[in-house]
């Protein structure tokens, strides 16, 4: 089924770190799969779990939040709240037996271009492995 399947991954990236990390990966001419649709946010804590859920339920094959490493948030503690919210959403997914594998949180700093490329590569590969999001063509979702 996943032969030739190119996943669509929605990424919510913090402007101060992961988004800059993506920039660095680009300017350093690192290769990574073009499957991520990046959305820039001012801080990972700007991302309400409902954003992730919306992307997932509307058929994104995977969702990624990128934030500053713990302790490095531009707003001091935003990403600690993010961590708890994402953990909570994953817990809800677990209870409802939805795909926790389609939700990811990664800490990627502005200087970690290679790490950015690696995360995207791995996440894309993994999403290819698990196949398309079944929500994609379900009417009643």
């Amino acid at each position, binding site marked *: 089924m996943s032969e030739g399947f190119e996943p669509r991954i929605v990424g919510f990236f913090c402007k101060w770190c992961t988004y800059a990390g993506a920039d660095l990966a680009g300017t350093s001419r690192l290769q990574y799969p073009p499957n991520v649709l990046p959305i820039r946010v001012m801080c990972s804590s700007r991302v309400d779990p409902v954003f992730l859920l919306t992307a997932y339920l509307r058929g994104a094959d995977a969702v990624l939040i990128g934030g500053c490493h713990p302790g490095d948030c531009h707003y001091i503690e935003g990403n600690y709240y993010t961590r708890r919210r994402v953990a*909570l959403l994953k817990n809800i997914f677990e209870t409802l037996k939805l795909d926790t594998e389609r939700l990811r949180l990664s800490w990627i700093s502005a200087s970690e271009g290679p790490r950015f490329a690696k995360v995207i590569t791995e996440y894309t590969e993994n999403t290819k492995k698990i196949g398309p999001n079944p929500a994609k063509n379900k009417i009643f979702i």
Partner: protein
Amino acid sequence: MAKTNNKTDAKSMKGTVISTKEGLSKAITDFLKQAFEKNCFDTILIPVKVPANDSYAWVLLKDPALLDDANPLAPIMPVQGGKALSSILKHGVTDSSIAAVIRPCEMKAAIELYKLKQVKLDNITLITMDCPGVLPLKDWFKNPDEGEKKFKDIIKKWDDKDVRPLCQICDKFSVPLNEENATYPDLHFGVLGCSDGTGFVIPGSSKGEEILDTVGLTATKEVDKWESKVNEVTTQKRKKRSEAHKALNKEVGGSKNLPVAFALCINCHNCMRVCPVCYCQHCYFDSEALNKPPEVHLMRAAQKGSLLFKPDCLLFQVGRMSHMTLSCVSCGTCEDACPMSIKVGQVFSMVADQSQDAFNYQAGRSKDVPHPLRVFEDEQELDQVVTMCKDILETGEHK
């Protein structure tokens, strides 16, 4: 003896024996009359039968004579007491003191709302009782007189087969014995384990003790009988609860079953509006944010092959969970209000038990334990949180 609301040593609980010959409700209203006379509080928030005799409503009572129409153990719960209390006290306290006579789950909602800054509890005397549950609204309205009779029987036999599905599996029907940092009601009326026609009034705080002293009912008796029965019933209910949740999980879990479970949802959002802990004035799911121009719908329909109207039913359900599951007190008010008889309360309580467990939290247990989404740990973050957020690179699990 209890000095604060936070008694950790349940063993030290004392109570006063009261007569419940004419029923627990009557015993409570009689007590309230005495306390009213002695100026223990100025007003009482309590369920009162409506003039048409077919329902109950929350009333803020000033006139003790009206207590004759009040029923602390109303057979139904059309409005959750925590929500009623918050609508009075959202914008601050008055000097006058209010006694809120509410069920244990309503007190839990009030505590959550207190932590979410939606109610001030300073001048409130919280009064609860052992709760047998309430009847589903749908059953009640078929025949309220029958309902009254049926409920009298339920109280007498403590039989839970006709109460709401969530009441049947409620393990927090009394006070939180043996729970760390638990916040106790100022006064609790306990009947479990007591011989027929008697019960206990038990103070859970120094305020409660003072009230009992004032009305001449100083608490001196051991309440072991009651405690051990509460513990016994709690154990039974917990077992029933986890079995019910397990069965429900089989039924609704998974991306195939979940949409089926909510397929009948008509998107009325009643469940959210009556939920005591869904306090936002402007809910995202009611906002214009989800009303898109036609092109967007057409695009989605084209991508999917078809699009349900209104769309985003599951987004509402799971989104609401992601906002409030840690505060859900499993009261079942949502389910009672659902016109489509969806098991919305049962699903929410199942998710709530899991998520609260993961955060080592119990909604409404303690005024002093902060809401998990309002705080965080740096190095010492909860294991569950850290594991859930482990990156692929760190775990290498998908290599």
